[in-house]
């Protein structure tokens, strides 16, 4: 027990290092910086090069990493934040995701994909604590973590520049009017957060003796969790949150087993956010007010597409397989239609009701697993599973999302990351129902009225028909009372409530409807792949769906479909770029968000 507590503190130490940087940058830019993990990774690689290629000792390496990652932080600010000022924070969320993707892909091209061994140029002295040991590096990390936290805290509390940073965090417009150079402040905080990220990457890389190009993602997720536990923007809170998270995880491993670790972390986060939405160490129990809505999600006026054009497009899509006999493109389009359906469902939450979801893969998983279990275990026919699974998914979706719906804005966004991953983790751990990591195989292809739909064209038509159905339902919803109520919630929660629109109830309806439509996509996916496993439904998939919706134009059903089509077809048609494919994808995403921040199918309001 004592040993497990120590284990928790040792790993909490590592989380603290990342959490401090994240909490600081959030406080200033009001942005959840998804490129943070990538800077962390580049920092580790710079340190690895300095040590293994040039044989530098630890201190100069540390200096080099500090400088390089501070510069990289500046670069990210310049390329992915500044040009998008005023575009709203959803766009900033996506631009940082794109910047992170570009850095990760570039790192893979430069340093190669294999894990690099990274051995420390420091003497390892070990101290016996309880039944285990603590090494020099544990102490170095502790010292670095505490020092940076102290320096940051003093900087923010005592220096004029620190005041400017805090003023900008509280109210950017007011700070600007008081003569604060907010761009300068933004540059400084990105450089500082970058330096911190790089150093923590270096130290964690040394700690685990390994450096690789995807190391940033899970590290930054732990950092986010710790920062949220402590309350974003609160530096001592982030450190305590990190130790709390580490300890909870260690005890979870001791009592429940190693696979429960992440699930317990997520449960802890949701539990804390439910009772103290501002984090454990927030001054008040209430959420800090979000900046005026409308800067959070930039909604354009949807481009009106004439009815005849929609019908013509649908007709053209329907006859396509008669003209194009190429199975490859039919398959690509069928995948695009499945994801179009998924994007429509997310658009209901994010576009219409204004709530960000970063865990939409979870809803897809609910539908896919429901149908897979119904058809393989209970031998139900496909058609019945197609009808029943969405109902199951909607019910489960509402129940598990309900606690999170009290949260707003970014807090809800991070909670949904947890929910999405949580669903996959439950599928992994509930072995008796889902076969755990083995997944469910031999799912029969779709069969309608005794006819098996196996050909590429048949599957294309099935997905297209369901998509057309989805578009019709979503459009009807959008124009109904429900759609207007969702928009009222999006535009101004206080005003909506004043008019008698209950927030939690309407958010629940939005999430339930969304899960219902997403589940259709899940059913199609399961019967198309014929094999699903927990790692079919990744966090990356959730991000892709959100990108589709934003790219197509928020609150535009057809926009969601166009976004899905673009994001499935572009990487497919860019296959000739081979290893450069996702690098180009990231750049293209940045460019599109720059020129069409309100989406492809939307006009400026």
């Amino acid at each position, binding site marked *: 027990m004592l040993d*497990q507590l120590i*284990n928790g503190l040792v790993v909490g130490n590592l989380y603290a290092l990342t959490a401090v940087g994240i909490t600081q940058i959030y406080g200033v830019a009001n942005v959840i910086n998804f490129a943070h993990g990538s800077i962390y990774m580049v920092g580790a690689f710079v340190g690895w090069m300095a040590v293994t290629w040039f044989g530098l000792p630890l201190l100069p390496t540390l200096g080099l990493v500090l400088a390089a990652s501070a510069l990289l932080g500046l670069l990210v600010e310049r390329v992915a934040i500044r040009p998008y000022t005023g575009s709203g924070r959803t766009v900033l969320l996506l631009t940082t995701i794109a910047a992170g993707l570009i850095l990760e892909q570039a790192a*893979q091209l430069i340093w*190669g*994909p294999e*894990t690099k*061994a990274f051995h420390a140029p420091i003497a390892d002295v070990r101290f016996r604590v309880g*039944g*285990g*040991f603590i*090494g020099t590096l544990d102490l170095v990390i502790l010292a670095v973590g505490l020092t940076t936290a102290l320096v940051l805290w003093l900087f923010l509390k005592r220096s004029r520049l620190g005041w400017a940073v805090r003023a900008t965090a509280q109210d950017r417009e007011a700070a600007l009017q008081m003569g604060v150079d907010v761009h300068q402040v933004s540059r400084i905080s990105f450089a500082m957060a970058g330096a911190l990220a790089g150093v923590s990457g270096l130290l964690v890389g040394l700690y*685990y*003796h*390994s450096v690789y*190009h995807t190391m940033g993602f*899970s590290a930054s997720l732990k950092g986010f969790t710790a920062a949220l536990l402590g309350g974003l923007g609160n530096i001592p809170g982030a450190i305590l949150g990190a130790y709390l998270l580490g300890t909870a*995880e260690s005890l979870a*491993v*001791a009592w429940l*087993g*190693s*696979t429960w*670790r*992440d699930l317990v972390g997520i449960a802890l986060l949701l539990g804390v956010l439910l009772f103290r939405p501002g984090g454990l160490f927030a001054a008040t129990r209430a959420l800090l007010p979000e900046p005026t809505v409308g800067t959070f999600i930039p909604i354009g006026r949807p481009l009106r597409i004439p009815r005849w054009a929609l019908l013509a497009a649908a007709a053209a899509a329907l006859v396509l397989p008669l003209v194009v006999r*190429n*199975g*490859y493109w039919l*398959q*690509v389009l069928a*995948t695009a239609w499945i994801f179009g359906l998924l994007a429509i469902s997310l658009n209901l939450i994010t576009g219409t009701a204004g709530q960000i979801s970063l865990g939409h893969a979870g809803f897809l998983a609910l539908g896919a697993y429901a149908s897979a279990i119904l058809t393989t275990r209970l031998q139900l026919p496909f058609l019945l599973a197609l009808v029943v699974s969405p109902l199951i998914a909607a019910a489960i979706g509402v129940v598990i999302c309900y606690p999170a719906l009290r949260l707003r804005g970014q807090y809800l966004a991070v909670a949904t990351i947890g929910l999405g991953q949580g669903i996959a983790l439950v599928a992994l751990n509930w072995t008796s129902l889902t076969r*755990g*990591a*083995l*997944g469910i*195989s*031999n799912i029969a292809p779709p069969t309608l009225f005794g006819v098996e739909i*196996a*050909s590429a064209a048949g599957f294309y038509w099935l997905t297209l028909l369901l998509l057309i159905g989805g578009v019709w339902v979503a459009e009807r919803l959008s124009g109904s009372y429900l759609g207007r109520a969702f928009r009222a919630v999006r535009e101004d929660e206080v005003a909506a409530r004043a008019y008698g629109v209950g927030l939690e109830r309407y958010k629940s309806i939005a999430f339930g409807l969304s899960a219902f439509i997403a589940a259709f996509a899940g059913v199609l996916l399961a019967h198309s*792949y*014929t*094999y699903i*496993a927990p*790692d*079919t439904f990744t966090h990356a998939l959730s991000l892709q769906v959100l990108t589709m919706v934003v790219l197509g134009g928020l609150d535009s059903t057809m926009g969601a479909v166009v976004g899905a089509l673009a994001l499935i077809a*572009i*990487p*497919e*048609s*860019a*296959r*000739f770029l*081979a*290893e450069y494919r*996702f690098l180009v994808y990231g750049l*293209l995403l940045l*460019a*599109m968000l720059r*020129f*069409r921040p309100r989406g*492809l199918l939307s006009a400026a309001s």
Partner: protein
Amino acid sequence: MSLRRAQHARVLLAGVLTFAVVTAGCSLAPTTPSGAQGPAGAQNAAQGEVLIGVMGPLTGDNAEYGKIWRRGFDLALEEINAAGGVQGRPLNYVFEDTQSDPKQTPAVAQKFVSDPRIVAVIGDFSSPASMAASPIFQRAGLVQLGITNSHPDFTKTGDYIWSNSGSQEDDAPFLATLAVEDLGKKRLAVLHMNTDWGQTSADLFIAKAESLGAEIVLREAYLLTEKDFRPVLTKARDANPDALILISYYNDGALIAQQIDDVGLDVTVVAIGSTYSPQFIALGGEAVEGVYTATRFHPADPRPEAQEFVRKYREKYGVEPDNFAAVAYDGIKILAAVLNEVGVDRKALRDGLEKAENLQTVMYGTTAFGEDRRLRNPRYLRLVVRNGAFEIWEP
């Protein structure tokens, strides 16, 4: 007014960008072969190059395995084409990056199926990605050879789905014999990766170990993304085992080995064959000294076919080959041998794989496919890490 115009320009630009990318892709849709292709290969293309479609990760989390595959493929192709190709035609492959993502493999599968130049497919790396594509290959009658697919259900999709990957049904029980009989360990703590492969291997290992009279004092699964093993190792320490069994890949295997000392655990470590890689030692350093493992392939394997492969691989790439390189090399060699025998035809290839006797492989020696469409007669080498290298160990 000018603002309006600027916006229109932006709309246009974005539209043009998308259109350009999409059309550029379409026009290039019939893929150009990406494999090792000398000038001779390019000239002969018109006379009918024989193509193998490869789907695997070149980007993303598993990109390193795709890179290693390529080396194995290229080496095999060099030899095959130097010896006249298949039925006098040059053999080559088309590598499509799927990131081992099941969302991308069905489309790639359709692409391969509708490309008449492709006679067989190798891949994908992970089970979800591979098995999402299998029904398409089965329906179209195109052989899919999984070179790393040990999922027990992989070849069950149908008679066009084959694998030369190590089957867990052989690997895990052999490891149990090594731990219990050869090393005489009786109290085992088993840590396994929580994937289809890890779970099945652990089940098979435990069944065999228990039948040999050992006691399993702890069984723990860990997540793929796990880095901090102190808590689970502390738990293992408190169960008081005399050996720690790792069902791991080399990255996480090395991480576990490094953290064993930190919790004050002092036992013999026996790790499954996937840890056998130069990377395991590079990453683990001194911590992996004395780790036992069993593999079907080792550069010091005295068999001439293995020696030949190692020599050529070292010459070409300057590093030692690992399991992934060997299965990739074997995969191409098997397909080439059968194609040479039965002719370049999808159906004939499938029948040929079933009938082929005396397939020459690095991993299995001389072998053939069994009823389950996996290779028969695995052979194993016992290894131990000594002085920073894997050495062959005899009990």
